[in-house]
C-alpha cells in the first residue's frame, strides 16, 4: 500500500469527519431553535473539530512512516540475509541497498550482487508488511480520534474555542520555522567548522596565505598535507565583490537613481523602471554564462592589446564587471529610497536660494541622504560577496593573492562550490573547509546586514 494512496484515504476520512461533525452541529442548531446561546459554536466548527481530531493522529503516523519506513525495511532485509552476503562497512551496505532498491523499482533488469535478487523479494514483502501496518495504524488512530471527538459534541461544547486554539498553535509553529532555519544554519555551520578546526588551526585558516585544499589519498603523495590559508580567498572576494563590482555599481546605480527621481518625467520613469527590474530579475547563472562567454574573452583581448602578456581568460575584472551590472538595480533602488526620504523642504529651500538642480542634488540631497545611500551600498556589498554563480563561471579557481584585475582570483563562494561538488568523502578536511568558509561568509554578511539596516533605520528616523 503506497503512502500516497493512504494519504488520500486519510484525507477522505477527514472530509467525512468534517461532514459528520457539521451534521451533528446543525442538528443541535435545529433542536436549540432561535434561543440565543443554546448552541455555543456554529456547525462548521463542530465539523472542523472532529476533522482535526481525526486527521492529526493519522497524519502523525503517516509522517513517522515517511521518515522511518524505509530504514525499518532496510534493517529487516539486512538482518534476514545469510551471514557474509554483504560486507560489514556502511559503504558496502548502502551500495547493496541501493541496488536492491533499484531492483524493486525495476530500474535494473538483473542483479550484480547474487544475493540482491533474494533481498529484493524480501524487500517487497517487508515493505508490504510495514505498509499494511502503518496504513492500518494510521487509519485506526484517525477513526478513533474522529469518533472520540464526535462523541464529545454537545450543544454547549466549545468547538470554536478548540478549533481556534489549534489554529493559534499552527500559527506559532509556522513562525518558529524561521527561527529553526536560522538555528539550523548556525548549528550546521558551527558544528562542521568545529570539526574542521580540529584538523586545521583557526589561525592558519584565517591568516594563512596558501590555499590548496587538495589532500592526497595516499600519505606518501606530494603535497599530501593540503594548505588551508584562506586569505587569498578573502582577498579575491573583496576584490571582485567589494571593489571592482562597486566601482561599476555605485556610480551607475546612484546616477540612475538620481536621474529617475529628480529629472525624469513620469512617463519616462514608467519605461525605465521595468528595465532595471528586468536587470534585477535575470538569474545569476545567466550573468555567469554571459561573463564567461562574452565579457571574459573581451577583457582578455583588451589586456593583451594593452601589453599584458599573461592575461587570464578567467579574470577578476570580467567577473567583477558583470557582478557590478547585476548589482546596479539594487544600489539604484536603495539610493532611490534614500533620496525620496529627504524632506522636500530641504530641496525646495536650496532651489529657492538659486541653486541649480544639480547643485541641489550634489550639495543638499546627497549629503542629507548619505547615511541611507551608504547603508544601501553596504547591503549591496553583502549581496555581491555572497553571489556564487558569476564567480564560479567567470572568476576561476586559482587562489592568487594579486591586485592585478586581469589576473585570475578565486572567491569564498566559488571555492565552496568547487569543494562540495563532485566526489567527496564527508570527513576530509577538504569538504569540511567549505563549511568553515560558509561560516565566515555567513558571519560577514550577517554583520554587514545588521550594521547597514541599523544605519538605514537611524537615518529614516532622523527625517520622520
Amino acid at each position: 500500500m503506497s503512502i500516497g494512496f493512504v494519504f488520500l484515504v486519510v484525507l477522505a476520512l477527514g472530509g467525512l469527519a468534517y461532514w459528520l461533525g457539521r451534521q451533528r452541529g446543525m442538528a443541535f442548531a435545529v433542536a436549540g431553535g432561535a434561543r440565543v446561546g443554546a448552541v455555543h459554536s456554529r456547525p462548521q466548527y463542530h465539523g472542523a473539530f472532529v476533522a482535526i481530531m481525526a486527521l492529526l493522529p493519522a497524519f502523525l503516523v503517516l509522517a513517522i512512516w515517511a521518515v522511518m519506513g524505509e530504514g525499518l525495511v532496510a534493517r529487516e532485509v539486512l538482518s534476514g540475509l545469510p551471514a557474509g552476503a554483504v560486507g560489514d562497512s556502511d559503504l558496502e551496505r548502502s551500495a547493496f541497498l541501493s541496488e536492491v532498491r533499484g531492483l524493486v523499482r525495476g530500474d535494473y533488469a538483473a542483479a550484480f550482487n547474487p544475493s540482491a535478487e533474494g533481498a529484493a523479494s524480501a524487500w517487497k514483502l517487508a515493505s508490504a508488511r510495514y505498509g499494511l501496518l502503518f496504513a492500518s495504524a494510521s487509519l485506526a488512530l484517525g477513526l478513533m480520534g474522529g469518533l472520540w471527538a464526535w462523541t464529545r459534541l454537545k450543544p454547549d461544547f466549545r468547538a470554536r474555542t478548540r478549533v481556534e486554539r489549534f489554529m493559534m498553535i499552527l500559527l506559532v509553529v509556522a513562525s518558529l520555522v524561521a527561527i529553526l532555519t536560522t538555528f539550523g544554519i548556525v548549528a550546521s555551520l558551527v558544528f562542521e567548522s568545529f570539526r574542521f578546526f580540529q584538523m586545521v588551526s583557526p589561525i592558519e585558516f584565517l591568516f594563512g596565505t596558501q590555499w590548496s585544499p587538495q589532500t592526497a589519498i595516499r600519505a606518501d603523495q606530494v603535497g599530501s598535507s593540503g594548505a588551508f590559508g584562506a586569505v587569498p580567498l578573502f582577498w579575491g572576494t573583496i576584490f571582485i565583490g567589494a571593489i571592482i563590482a562597486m566601482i561599476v555599481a555605485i556610480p551607475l546605480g546612484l546616477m540612475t537613481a538620481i536621474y529617475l527621481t529628480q529629472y525624469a518625467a513620469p512617463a519616462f520613469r514608467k519605461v525605465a523602471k521595468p528595465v532595471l527590474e528586468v536587470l534585477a530579475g535575470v538569474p545569476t547563472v545567466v550573468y555567469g554564462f554571459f561573463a564567461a562567454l562574452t565579457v571574459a574573452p573581451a577583457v582578455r583581448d583588451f589586456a593583451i592589446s594593452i601589453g599584458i602578456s599573461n592575461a587570464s581568460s578567467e579574470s577578476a575584472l570580467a567577473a567583477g564587471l558583470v557582478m557590478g551590472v547585476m548589482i546596479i538595480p539594487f544600489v539604484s533602488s536603495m539610493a532611490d529610497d534614500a533620496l525620496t526620504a529627504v524632506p522636500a523642504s530641504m530641496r525646495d529651500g536650496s532651489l529657492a536660494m538659486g541653486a541649480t538642480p544639480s547643485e541641489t542634488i550634489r550639495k543638499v540631497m546627497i549629503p542629507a541622504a548619505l547615511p541611507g545611500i551608504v547603508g544601501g551600498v553596504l547591503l549591496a556589498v553583502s549581496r555581491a560577496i555572497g553571489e556564487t554563480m558569476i564567480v564560479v563561471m567567470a572568476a576561476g579557481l586559482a587562489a592568487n593573492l594579486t591586485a592585478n584585475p586581469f589576473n585570475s582570483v578565486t572567491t569564498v563562494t566559488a571555492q565552496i562550490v568547487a569543494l562540495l561538488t563532485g566526489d567527496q568523502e564527508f570527513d576530509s578536511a577538504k569538504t569540511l573547509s567549505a563549511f568553515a568558509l560558509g561560516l565566515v561568509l555567513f558571519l560577514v554578511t550577517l554583520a554587514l546586514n545588521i550594521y547597514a539596516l541599523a544605519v538605514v533605520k537611524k537615518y529614516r528616523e532622523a527625517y520622520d
Partner: protein
Amino acid sequence: MDRQGAGVRGNLSAAPTAWGSDQMQARIRRRYRQERNFKAMGILALMIAAGFLVFLMVTVIGSGWNSFRQTQVLVPVTFEAERLGITPEQARADPRALSRANFQGVLSDSVERRFGDDAALVSDGAWLALRKAVEADPALIGTTKEMWLIATSNIDQLSKRQIDLDADETNRPVNDVEIAAWGRLKAEGKLRTVLNMTFLTSADSVDPELAGIWGALKGSFLTLVVTLAISFPVGVLAAIYLEEFAAKNRWTDIVEVSINNLAAVPSIIFGLLGLSVFLNTMNMPRSAPVVGGLTLALMTLPVIVIASRAAIKAVPPSIRDAALGIGASRVQVVFHHVLPLALPGMLTGTILGMARALGETAPLLMIGMRAFLTSVPQGLTQPATALPVQIFIWSDNVSRGFVEKTSGAIIVLLVFLLTINSLAIYLRNRFEVRW
C-alpha cells in the same frame, strides 16, 4: 566650493551680486554647463544599464535561437529482418521484442551503404526514430524507407553556418571530409532544417544534437511544487501570527530579526544547510527534487513572510474593528476578513519568490542536483536536475553544439521568468486594492 570661493575673492572690483558683470555671466554659464553635464551623466548611466541588458539579450538570443532548429539528413533505411533479429510477426505479437532488436546495426548499415564510411553524418541516437517507425508500422520490416534522421552536431553546426570554413583544419572542430560530405548533401537537397523537438522533449545527453531540456524543466517543476507547497502556507501563517497575534516581546523580536536576516543570507548558505541537515543528517536521497524543494522553500520563506506582512499591514484597521464590533472572534476577524483582503498581495509576493527560486542555482549544486541524467525524472525522490543547473552544466561543455544549447536553455528560462513576473504584475494591478 574652493573654485567658487577663489572666484569671489578675485572679483572684489565688481560687487558679487552684479548680474550684468562679465564674471557673473561666466559663472552662470559654467553652472548651467555643469547642470547639463550632470543630467547627461544620469542619462548615460541609464543608457549603460539598458545597453547592457540589450547586449545580453541579443547575445543570448542570437546564439540560442539556433538550438530550436534541427538539421536532418535523408537516408534510405533498409529494415532487414535478419539484421534486426525480429520478424514483423514477432513485432506485432509482442511490442517488447522491439527493445531487443538491433536498430543500431540497421542504422549503421543503411548509413554506410548510402554515404560510405568516411564521415559521421547521422547522429548515433537516430536509431530511436527507426524503432518508433517500426513500432507504428511493423510491416516496415523487410522493406526500405527514406527517412529524415537527426544529423550529427558537426553537420548541424555547418548547416547553421556556425563554423568558419576559412579557418585552418586543425583550428576548427569539423574536418574537411565532413565539410565535403555536407556540401554534397546540401547540393543534392538531402538536408533539411526543422523545429527541434528533440531539444524540447528529451533529457540531457553527451551528444549535443540529442540533448534536451525537458528533463531539467520537469526537475525544476517538481522542485518548485515542493517549494510552493511548503513555503506558501508556512510563510502566510507566520506572517499572520507576527502581524496580528504576536505580543511585542523579546521572543517576537527574535523571530522578526531572524526572518529579516534570512532574507539577506547568501543562497549558497542555504545549500550548505540542505547538504548538512537534509542529506547528511536526515539521509534524504541525493539530487532529489524533494530536497531541492525543501532547501529553496527555506530560502523563499522570508520573502513570502515579508510580502505577506506588508499585505496584512495594508488592510485598514477599520475592517478589523467592524468585524470585532459585531462579535467575531480574533481568529474569525483574521481568517474571514483580513486574509481574503490581503491575499492578492500575498500571492504577488509568493509568485515573485517562486520566480527567484526558479532562477536559483547555487543551493541546488550543493545538494547534488548537478548530476548528468539522461532520463526524465518521474518522482519527487528520483535524481533530477533543474533548468538553471542544466545551463550551468552545459556552459562548462566546450563542444560548439552545447554553446547554442546553453543559450537556448537560457531563452526558455527567461521566457518562464517573464511569464511568472507578468502574472505577478497582472495580479497586483487586477486585485490589489488601495485603501
